[in-house]
């Protein structure tokens, strides 16, 4: 009995150490990212004053771009998305909507709205995909093509879009998203101005719920009504404004949201396109490109810019939120596992030695550590291994730290873009940033924990989040 007691005590002590290290490493890196992002975004915002958007718009050397929209059962929003994309301010633009075997009226609505006719065109594929059923075009709208294909999943639809794309760069856009008119110009700016070959450029994704959408445009920005959606507004701000900005500054970008990103077509084709191995094909592609660059001794850049805006619908119900977060976590684990040789591999520089381990320890495994912590630490108190006061203080410390990071994200927003003009909205953002760590964080943590468990169980399920058109 004494032996078991000793094992239990040692086990608990070990776990407490893991919890403490997770807390300090995670929050330490997040704080570093926040400080870096505050400085970077402030400077970047000043740099916008002389970025020469007109020059990019008018220059003959601005490369043409194809926007690829994979769509599966998106009848609710596909017309708004396509309309918004066709109004995009960009000198040479093509749009390819890939209907990935929808069972609703996604294709029919597109055909009817844009007066498309079915054509029998040649399908040349560099990347293997499921068979294409037909091409739909309107000779009067020459820059729009709708492709209907057999269901093969999002990566397959994206690969079909890449096969059809003739431009040196393509932009992936989720079917539930709306682009700001100059978003693509802004997203292409780092590609055009960078002296290094920029193969991926990501922009910021903001929550569209609660906003007024008219004619494929976000006409009025407002916060959503439900608390669940408001929490996500703060979360997106934190994730994009200081998470991605910070990693970009450090040169450790591992994630570029495929919801809105530009990629260099040739490089993507070289690495085999979007893979079916994981459920987060965008992250997998970025990591795959890091691999390819090291293997082929190429100097590539993957950038994140905080001013090109894409508005997207965030899940409005707990069920949908659960589906989304489980998939993200599952995909993160799958991608990190698939590319595990990058871990502490000197060849990969900062990505292998800092970004990859951080994502593994804090973002992937952290979900398990933190989730179990909520149960194990009270157990330690019951067995008098940790004083209850310390536990309580530690919980409060964790909440205060979380609040600091979220309020920091709101500050970043206020220092730069100020998309939410009303004082009420600002107060609401601050309040939700502060209370995000009480309840919402634990809820998301549970979904992430389930995501890790599904990974351990070998799941490859792609959970579809359905959209209901939450914008007003």
């Amino acid at each position: 009995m004494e032996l078991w007691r000793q094992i239990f005590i040692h086990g608990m002590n070990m776990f407490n150490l893991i919890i403490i290290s997770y807390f300090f490493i995670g929050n330490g890196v997040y704080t570093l990212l926040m400080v870096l992002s505050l400085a970077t975004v402030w400077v970047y915002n000043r740099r916008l004053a002389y970025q020469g958007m007109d020059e990019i718009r008018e220059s003959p050397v601005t490369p043409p771009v194809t926007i690829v929209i994979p769509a599966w059962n998106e009848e609710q929003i596909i017309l708004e998305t396509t309309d918004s994309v066709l109004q995009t301010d960009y000198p040479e633009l093509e749009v390819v909507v890939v209907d990935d075997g929808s069972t609703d009226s996604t294709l029919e609505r597109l055909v009817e709205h844009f007066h498309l006719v079915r054509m029998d065109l040649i399908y040349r594929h560099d990347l293997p995909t499921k068979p294409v059923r037909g091409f739909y075009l309107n000779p009067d709208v020459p820059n729009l093509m709708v492709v209907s294909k057999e269901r093969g999943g999002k990566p397959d639809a994206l690969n079909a879009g890449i096969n059809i794309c003739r431009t040196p760069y393509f932009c992936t856009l989720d079917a539930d998203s709306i682009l700001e008119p100059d978003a693509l110009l802004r997203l292409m700016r780092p590609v055009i101005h960078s002296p290094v070959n920029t193969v991926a450029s990501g922009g910021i994704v903001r929550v569209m719920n609660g906003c007024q959408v008219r004619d494929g445009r976000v006409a009025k920005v407002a916060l959503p009504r439900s608390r669940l959606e408001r929490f996500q507004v703060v979360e997106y701000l934190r994730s994009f404004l200081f998470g991605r900005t910070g990693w970009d500054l450090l040169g450790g970008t591992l994630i570029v949201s495929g919801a809105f990103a530009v990629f260099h077509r040739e490089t993507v084709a070289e690495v085999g396109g979007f893979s079916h191995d994981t459920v987060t094909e965008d992250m997998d592609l970025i990591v795959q490109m890091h691999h390819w660059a090291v293997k082929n001794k190429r100097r590539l850049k993957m950038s994140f810019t905080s001013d090109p805006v894409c508005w997207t619908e965030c899940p409005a119900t707990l069920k949908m939120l659960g589906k989304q977060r489980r998939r993200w976590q599952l995909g993160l684990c799958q991608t990190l596992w698939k590319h595990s040789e990058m871990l502490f591999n000197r060849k990969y520089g900062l990505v292998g030695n800092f970004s990859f381990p951080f994502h593994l320890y804090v973002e992937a495994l952290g979900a398990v550590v933190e989730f179990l912590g909520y149960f194990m630490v009270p157990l330690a108190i019951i067995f008098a291994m940790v004083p209850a006061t310390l536990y309580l203080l530690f919980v409060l410390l964790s909440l205060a730290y979380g609040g600091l990071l979220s309020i920091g994200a709101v500050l970043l927003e206020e220092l730069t873009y100020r998309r939410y003009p009303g004082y009420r909205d600002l107060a609401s953002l601050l309040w939700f940033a502060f209370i995000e760590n009480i309840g919402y964080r634990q809820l998301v943590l549970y979904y992430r924990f389930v995501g890790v468990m599904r990974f351990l169980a070998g799941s490859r399920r792609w959970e579809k989040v359905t959209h209901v058109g939450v914008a007003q």
Partner: protein
Amino acid sequence: MPFLIEHVIEAVFALFTLLLLGNLLLVGVVIIRRKRRQKFFQRMDALREKYGPVIAGVLSGGMAYEQGLRELREVSGPGSLSMLERLCLEKRPASAEMPVLGRLCEDLGLVKIWQERLAGQTDKTSLREALVDPPGWVLRVRFLSFLIRSKSAENLGLIRHGPSWPLLVKALEDPSPDLQAVAARALAAIRHPGSFPALVERFHKAVLDPAPVLSVRTLKSALVSFPLQSACGLAVSLRHTNPRIRFLAADVIREMVEREAGGNPDFCLDQENGNAELAALFLTKLAFDVNPDVRAQAAHVIVCLPDPRSGPVLVGLLKDSVWFVRLHAVRSLSKPKFASHAGWVAKALTDSNWRVREAAVRALRAFGPAGLDELTGRFLETRDRYSQEQIAEEFQRAGLIPQLLARCAEKGRNREAAVLSRLVEMGKTSYIISLLDLGEGNAALHKEFLRKLGQKAVPQILHWLQPVALPASGSGARSQAPSTLAPKRPHGKG
């Protein structure tokens, strides 16, 4: 002193208190920032309301210049210079307004300040004033001064301030990549001939530097903005030993030529636009360059040379061993004025590379009716499957099927019927059928289509025929449909 759990508790408590204060501090900063911005924008709006019409009036000539200047000089208070700068430059002026805007900025003293800032001189304001006005203090922080210097360069470019070009040329060598890029853009906007050689030199450096700080694309874009007459300044690049420099220089000239040709269908690169040295370089050297990229770009320039040698050289490029050289050669000819070259372009329809075939089809379409005639003839004559597929694709994409179908219904239009017949044989029926479905009331069209093409036993056509044959269809072709369907029934779907 022994390490006790109480010490840990104290440390955690201290940290917690610190973080809580940090939270409050951030909230305070957010609110103060919001208030300050609001105040700034209120002031800006008030100034805009008062002085916006003055600036618009001065620029359009609706207000006397001196009077406008006097009124604008009244703008005072903290940050007044930044406000004036904003007011003057927030709207993009028309080309005709540019000289007045330049003069206005000079008379308001803005140009002098921009020039001083660009040169790295600190504003002659007190530290207190500088702290109120953001550019003032940013300029004093050495590692951030590039922000203000770059903005000043941008402003000089916006008003196309010619006399500032030497300062901007100097800025091309500044350690800040931002300032270099903005200076290049400003020089491109000013287009002073004296700055072209400096840009060319900077362009060479950027290409040859293994870790460049300035994007080659930015420099290329700047060089392209200059008038075509400046192109002779690139002769040194065209002769450079580095193949990438030769390629990029040829590409810059190609862009210049295409820009000129865009607004003038009869454009040619004669003595007035170019010079004999450049023409000779393209015809004798670059068209035969070891780097295929150079040959590819050269095609677009050679096509505009009114030189008897250009024809044979272009034919050589159309037969080049590298596919993208052939591609560019074909693309260079895709303008109506080159319709006489249709024969040469048509040969590319059977090229081994699909991109060349596609370019050839599009070039023939660009030739107008004569090109379309050539394309139709080739479509009917050729036995090359790939070529047929490519032409069929263009017929559909360009929206030619409705025309073909309409003409097919007219008497004596056997060629159109033959094209449709070939399309049906190839299984390219989707577009045709959707048009027939749309034109349900068009009995003559249905009847003629059935008469001429009904015997093609392709499943898609038979599938279309079935509803037509139904008594409820109401189509004029109903009587003809069952007889067409009957013998084919075993091959059809039912």
